[in-house]
């Protein structure tokens, strides 16, 4: 008679213990994990060389941030949509145009105060989000069809409104004196470019210190609790690199007037969404719905509500992005928001967000958005014509996905 009861509880041993001497394997794993960050670094160095260091100048750094602010904001929204199962929002770019026109009309033609205009714009966005979200989550129309309808109709509506508001130019110019502009654009404690902006420089130093210290504190705590941690070297390298990046960026900005207001919005949004996705039950539900919708449902997750929330949230962030873009352009016109949806999707995909849902981080999206932003800004500087720019962007997108899939295959 054979006794089939397990003889002894098997101690928890690693399933595939990696040979400690196999350092090349380790290095390769680290490279794979941070591939997009490395690509970003290489691309930046490439433009540094090609522009003779011009792209590193404070003015250009400042411009890259301001030009791409909307990508980070929309990227957070698109990330949440994609997490639910690779769903996208095609309508957000066109909605920027519609909402911008409405906002411009209220600010200029109707002369509403900024706060009332902002409140009403958010209200319109919430309405849009509810309609899209309802159709997608509760009527079960595929997201790309619902948002394609938005993509087709919103810009038309916006352009119509512009034609009514300003028949001659089909664009609404927001006067420089309008208080609205100061909320989303401009510079904090602005100084002359020739002077060093102390607020900016000190903020940079403090932030860098906070990042380094918190990284080590978290690591110590995890060790104390017996959780798995990355090696000491990798923590050191990580903290030094992030601190250096913060210091360099802030130092350069300090030589171009100071911290651009829009950067605060971007950092705020990124931090909030980083927190939501990483540390809240709501964020967790987005991941599990995308990872296995049926399993999420059977575990008591209201999957429909999550889908609804994704598109409501997207509309809300689109409103925020619209305000930053209006402020930068100091106008609302029929071209604003063109291809924004593609930029946001590209930022997510390049940043490693899974096209089938359930995986991806805000940090990854930020890296993806920055990579695209650097390429966007760098190419005209070295005289790549506008058609070839599109080709390069397309290839970068494709390359990112191919790389992602191949590296995952090798992991197995």
């Amino acid at each position, binding site marked *: 008679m054979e006794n089939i009861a397990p003889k002894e509880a098997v101690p928890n041993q690693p399933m595939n213990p990696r040979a400690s001497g196999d350092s090349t394997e380790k290095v390769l794993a680290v490279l794979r994990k941070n591939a997009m960050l490395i690509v970003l670094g290489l691309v930046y160095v490439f433009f540094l060389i090609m522009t003779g260091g011009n792209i590193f100048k404070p003015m250009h750094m400042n411009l890259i941030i301001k030009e791409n602010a909307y990508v980070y904001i929309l990227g957070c929204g698109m990330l949440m949509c994609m997490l639910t199962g690779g769903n996208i929002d095609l309508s957000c770019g066109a909605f920027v145009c519609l909402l911008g026109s409405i906002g411009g009309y209220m600010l200029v033609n109707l002369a509403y105060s900024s706060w009332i205009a902002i409140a009403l714009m958010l209200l319109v966005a919430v309405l849009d989000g509810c309609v899209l979200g309802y159709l997608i989550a509760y009527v079960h129309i595929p997201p790309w069809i619902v948002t394609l309808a938005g993509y087709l109709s919103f810009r038309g509506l916006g352009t119509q409104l512009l034609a009514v508001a300003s028949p001659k130019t089909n664009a609404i110019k927001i006067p420089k004196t309008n208080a609205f502009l100061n909320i989303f654009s401009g510079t904090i404690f602005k100084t002359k470019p020739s002077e060093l902006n102390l607020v900016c420089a000190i903020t940079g130093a403090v932030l860098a210190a906070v990042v380094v210290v918190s990284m080590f504190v978290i690591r110590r705590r995890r060790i104390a609790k017996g959780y798995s941690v990355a090696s000491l070297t990798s923590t050191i390298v990580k903290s030094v690199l992030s601190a250096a990046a913060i210091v360099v960026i802030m130092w350069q900005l300090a030589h171009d007037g100071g911290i651009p207001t829009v950067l605060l919005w971007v950092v705020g949004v990124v931090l909030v969404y980083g927190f939501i996705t990483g540390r809240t039950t709501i964020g967790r*539900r987005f*991941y599990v719905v995308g990872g296995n919708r049926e399993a999420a449902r059977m*575990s008591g997750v209201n999957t429909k509500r999550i889908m609804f929330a994704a598109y409501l949230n997207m509309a809300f962030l689109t409103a925020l992005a619209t305000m930053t873009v209006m402020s930068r352009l100091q106008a609302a016109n029929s071209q604003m928001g063109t291809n924004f949806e593609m930029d946001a999707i590209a930022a997510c995909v390049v940043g490693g967000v899974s096209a089938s849902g359930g995986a991806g981080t805000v940090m990854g999206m930020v890296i993806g958005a920055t990579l695209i932003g650097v390429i966007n800004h760098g190419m005209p500087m070295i005289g790549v014509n506008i058609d070839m720019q599109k080709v390069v962007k397309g290839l970068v997108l494709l390359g990112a996905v191919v790389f992602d899939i191949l590296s995952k295959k090798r992991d197995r």
Partner: protein
Amino acid sequence: MAEYLLEMQGITKTFPGVKALDNVNLQVEQGEIHALVGENGAGKSTLMNVLSGIYPYGSYEGDILYEGQVCKFANIKDSERKGIVIIHQELALVPEMTIGENMYLGNERGHKMAINWTETYAEADKYLRMVKLSESSKVPVNTIGTGKQQLVEIAKALAKHARLLILDEPTSSLNEEDSRALLDLMLEFKKQGMTMIIISHKLNEVAYVADKITVIRDGKTIETLDNRGAEPISEARIIRGMVGREMTNRFPKRENVAIGSVRLEVENWTVHHPIYPERKVVDDVNLYVREGEVVGIYGLMGAGRTELAMSIFGQSYGTHFSGKLKIDGKVVRQRRSEADAIRHRIAYVTEDRKGNGLVLSQDIMVNTTLANLGAVSKFSILDKDREHEAAMEYQRKLNIKTPSVEQLVGNLSGGNQQKVLLAKWMFAEPDILILDEPTRGIDVGAKYEIYCIINDLAAAGKCVIMISSELPEVLGMSDRIYIMNSGRMIDEMKAEDATQESIMTAIVNAGRGD
């Protein structure tokens, strides 16, 4: 050496973490019916998947010799070209298409891009007659019954010029009469020279139809029995090979568990099919479970057990519900919501852990806390430390073998995945657990551990409903057994009064009553 049509020599197939097949040998003679038997998860289906090229050449070790030649199949098409056709357990027919369209799906008649429909239907009709079906091949598949659909599958295989037909649990969803007709058809084919491999759990059928029986256990070939003697081989003899031990020690004893008062009652519970609302999937079912009691629900595939369980769990399956659900004597308000069911402390541990049980792309921690995120968060903010500790606690409790709880669930073996699934529902702190095929597809050792967990749950005063297709398991683990057939509860027995024979007789009799 006899003339073998097929020889599989030393087949070894490993999946991450599991050795599914270990040096398996199988020899099939021309013109015989060869049965492949073994417990769930013994490796029968894996072996057939190797043979048919689903697991291509190179992904396994060993050789396949077919008509004396070594075969290196890259996919199913390759093996089908040689005449090896497999009919899977789950019917693979497109319900809306006609019989003829289904039979030639991917194998269309005609040339180049044009389909010759006249030829298709004429040919299809010819093969339908061979399997003794009188239906026209122009009839949509969803208008004929399951038994006939199974025959269509066989006709489809014949249309591919099958010379070695593999039938994976062909009778699992058929009633007694249809099963017998199918087996007789197999014997008739044998007379015409067809070679067949049948995989089946139904040992009486195996003994009836097979010439030789190969027993597989835990991925290894145990023995090949000859069944061509005057007396058919006894089921007990086959079982001995399958389990490799006496049956006494398979189920841990449950000691000193006091059975308390009734916690869950289901009265006149009727549920209709979500797509075909005119069909009753669960028909006027009554059942109750007491504190500390393990209640088994046995029934053949398609009896409506899973549908019953899911409909009790927040109406997560079906439409047009009627009947009462009472917990501790109080009627539960009917609402379609899984979250509601969890709030009422009901847990449904699915039979389909990959489909609707686990998020394979997430780690053990995320899966463990998923059904009770409230316990590891405050104001929706996750306390990752508490989450980590909870996951580690259940990892220890259920002996989940993993380097860390941050391991992706997709990388675990079946048994460990099943434990994570159990951990998830135990963490949800339910009073009533519905376990649907809790030991499906996991190895013997892990099964024993799961049984121990079930006993612990009962000892802790939980109500356990265990749905299972394995009779010994139902008999060995339950205090009381319900028997279900085509949506109805046909019998209820105390475990000490029940035997395999009495349960099967109840099902057969109910089938006759139709």
